[in-house]
């Protein structure tokens, strides 16, 4: 693989996420208002989220899954659509559990 090939798929993304321990909470700690996302032209969350949790939908909205979240906060930091993303920490004892990082 040449260094500039983009090198997107050296590890399958599902395999990648399967290496991480998540204690999934009942309640989502991130809430996305897809109506607001529809008016967003950049959708930076889709590419920036290291866990790849934001999926653009055909109607222009964004589908979001909180279960494999690293709780890094990149999504709300790059989000420029007011009110699209409500971000907090998951319930105590839940969420990502990092062991070798």
């Amino acid at each position, binding site marked *: *693989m*040449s*260094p*500039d*090939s*983009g*090198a*997107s*798929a*050296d*590890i399958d*993304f599902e*395999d*990648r*996420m399967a*290496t*991480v321990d998540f*204690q999934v909470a009942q309640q989502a700690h991130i809430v996305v208002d897809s109506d607001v996302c529809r008016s967003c032209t*950049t959708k*930076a969350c889709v*590419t*920036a989220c*290291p*866990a*790849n949790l934001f999926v653009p939908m055909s109607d222009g909205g964004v589908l979001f899954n909180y279960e494999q979240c*690293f*709780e*890094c*906060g*990149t999504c709300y*930091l*790059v989000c420029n659509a007011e009110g699209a993303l409500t971000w*907090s*920490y*998951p*319930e*105590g*004892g*839940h*969420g*990502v*559990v*990092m*062991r*070798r*990082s």
Partner: protein
Amino acid sequence: MTDFDAIVVGAGPAGAAAALRLAKAGRSVLLVERGPFPGAKNMYGGVIYGRILDEVVPRWWEQVPVQRWITRRATMITTAEQALSIDYRTQAWGREPYNGFTAYRAEFDSWLAGHAERAGAVLLCSATVTDLIRDANGRVVGVQTDRPDGEVRAKVVIACDGVHSFLARSAGLYDNFSAEHITVGVKEVLGLPRQVIEERCGLTGDEGLDIEILGCTKGVPGGGFLYTNRDTISVGVVLSVTGLAKAGVRPEELIARLKAHPSIAPILAGAQLKEYTAHTIPEGGYDAMPKLAADGLLVAGDAAGFCLAAGIWLEGVNYAIGSGLVAGEVAAGALAAGDTGQAMARAYDKALRDTFVLADHAKLRRAPHLVLSDRVQTQYPAFICDLVEQVFTVTNPQPKAGMRRWFGAQRRRHDVKLRHLAADALTGLRSFG
């Protein structure tokens, strides 16, 4: 009515250090952690520098959960096909009192919090602090957790709740909390037999290698890193979140690109992914820091932005511990004096300035901006690599042109302006000199 003298929010290195100091001063202290154990939510670039630990645990190296002692420290300037390394090795760092080491944060943070517990602090895990409790005068008097009946009251709260700093922000201490000052670190922990790691990295026994890499992030402001653990290697990138958003590339693609670099790939051949993680980092330095205290509240560690991203020095855990120790000591003094208001705030600021925590950051306040500038990120690496390549490419029968001519030629080729070089050199000298 208070439940504890002090509540420390977050059992990372800052929180554990603060709780330890308070407990040693004879104060009742609750250390609240949202993860199931200390370190569960923490990820870092990779090296913990030990000198500050001397003040916490005598002969800490005999008991700390170390992966490898760093004896080889390299800075690598790269382009897609080139690499210039400054590769320093000393055996002295592999002996007492040791300089720095790699560790898994799950193990290290638990170890440090264990010392706070043994000193008498009460560690409460799996509890997320959702807000501060304030009295009618706005004074912080406790925290709200997400446990049933989760209100806890104390005379002083120390917020060590990490980079997002929800408590400091809720107390109004940040007036410029901005994505511009935050980077995201994304890393892979890759498994290899320890003997293979030692052979490929030129290490013996518990020795370790740390490589910091510039010019490997496809123009997104940031850098790359590679650290050796006992039987894994951590490799990853640190990226400006705004730069990442603008570039529209995926972070794991940038790791894949770094892993494929000709000077990195041979080290990692055949390695298996063991863990993939991400965490944000406050890299804005001195000018991005919040106010560090309010009535009844102190802020330490990443929550206060005490993370040094100064290119040749990339440190955070040591500043977290250092600031936590100061916060614990100042809080203990304020409790003894019966004044955890303005006097405590002033004492905290002064004490931090008297230590490396704010002294270093004040001195290096211009460094983060310089390190993440376009010139340092993309223009200079290519210029330097091409210049070195020209110097070492033998062109006989053409005679050697000489350094001055090569420098001028590459400077023009890469459009490097002398006034920019001079300005950046001056900033560098002011910061690092």
